């Protein structure tokens, strides 16, 4: 029993106000911000609330001497591209900082190239350099499965994996590692590297966005850049999303962002080509033709392997 290990002098004598602890940590602002700023992602938000609750209770337990060692906080985020893994990782770093489980709360986002060297003896210093930057915060490894290449036994990725595993085990209080990638490949990666699986406490799966959610995301994205859809353009965007989803290389919110970037490009061209004076309000308006210029609409049939434009 944990109680037997606790120092009797530290035991609580009065009821604990968890709500006050919750408010005091400033964590509800982070969670509310998560709820407000991110569209959809219901299961993810629920999981993060659970983890935040666990961490809060853990912190209170530490305070009263019930917890004996630093909890394992390493996580894996799985989901298709553009489902908000990096964004959520950033929020996670603030939550961990608010609760004092990491000291500084920075997020260092890396991929295989940042960790693995190109020749013998290059990998360890490279990985250690990154780890040094991540100490006190969160190390986010995107597409972590590329670290391990089973087809090449001389691959230097293995060396990076060994260093990471060691740090994940021995420096748990110094940094939190989040591995991210496609669900199926991550599963395979974990099967081939059981060391990682056992060191990761929380697996969070990011679902794809619904069409309606993507439409609302596109509203927010435009709003942030001081643009907006005309009502007709919004209807076109709705159709665009449905069509874009069927095409290859669909990557959720990222595809939407790219589509909007191109719509802005067409809008600018349209305004330049416009004869006569321009109403300032036109600078903020995305019209249907800005979207209808997309190849998604121009081509009736999809060509496999083609990138969206």
């Amino acid at each position, binding site marked *: 029993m944990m109680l037997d290990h606790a120092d009797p002098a530290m035991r609580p004598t009065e009821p604990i106000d968890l709500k006050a602890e919750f408010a005091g940590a400033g964590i509800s602002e982070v969670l509310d911000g998560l709820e407000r700023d991110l569209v959809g992602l219901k299961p993810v938000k629920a999981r993060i609330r659970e983890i935040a609750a666990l961490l809060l209770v853990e912190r209170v337990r530490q305070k009263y001497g019930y917890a004996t060692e630093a909890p394992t906080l390493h996580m894996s985020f799985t989901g298709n591209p553009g489902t908000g893994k990096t964004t959520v990782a950033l929020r996670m770093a603030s939550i961990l900082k608010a609760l004092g489980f990491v*000291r*500084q709360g*920075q997020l260092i986002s890396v991929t295989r190239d940042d960790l693995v060297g190109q020749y013998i003896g290059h990998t360890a210093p490279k990985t250690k350099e990154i*780890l*040094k*930057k991540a*100490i*006190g*915060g969160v190390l986010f490894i995107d597409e972590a499965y590329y670290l391990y290449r089973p087809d090449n036994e001389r691959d230097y990725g293995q060396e990076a994996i060994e260093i990471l595993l060691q740090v994940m085990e021995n420096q748990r209080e*110094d940094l939190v590692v989040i591995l991210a990638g496609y669900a199926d490949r991550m599963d395979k990666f974990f099967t081939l590297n059981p060391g990682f699986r056992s060191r990761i406490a929380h697996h969070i799966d990011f679902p794809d966005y619904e069409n309606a959610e993507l439409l609302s995301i596109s509203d927010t994205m435009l709003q942030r850049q001081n643009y907006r859809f005309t009502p007709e353009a919004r209807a076109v965007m709705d159709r665009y999303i449905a069509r874009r989803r069927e095409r290859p290389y669909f990557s959720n919110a990222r595809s939407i962002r790219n589509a909007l970037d191109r719509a802005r490009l067409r809008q600018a061209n349209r305004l330049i080509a416009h004869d006569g004076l321009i109403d300032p309000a036109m600078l903020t308006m995305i019209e249907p033709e800005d979207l209808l210029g997309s190849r998604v609409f121009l081509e009736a049939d999809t060509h496999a392997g083609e990138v969206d434009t």
Partner: protein
Amino acid sequence: MRVTQGCFSYLPDLTDEQISKQIQYCLDNGWAVNLEYTDDPHPRNTYWEMWGLPMFDIRDAKAIMGELSDCRRIHTDCYIRLSAFDATNTWESLRISFIVQRPADEAGFMLTRQEIGGRMMRYETRAYGLQKPEGARYGD
């Protein structure tokens, strides 16, 4: 003879905990921390060996304490100093520098006097340690 230089030279040597707090202060100000070592303690020796590059983009003192302990392990009998560089426009120079390790046995300096023309006197300070070749000056 105890060599002193830089900040806190009037204080006893800082403990690791105190060093760590100083480092965190530097990092919080956005300064890049740098480690240097030497076995030539002469006060006019400004060219100390660098322990790797100045550590940019580091947020937590623990990372630098790790480097410091590596440096101490390899250069057991050297002076090690820690400095922090402020890259802010108009500063662009060191903001802090202090000694974080010294050899167990500091031999001190010999003062030699040389009489020159007109009963003039020329003085020279020479570290006793320097009589041995580089790398063998302190310790055994």
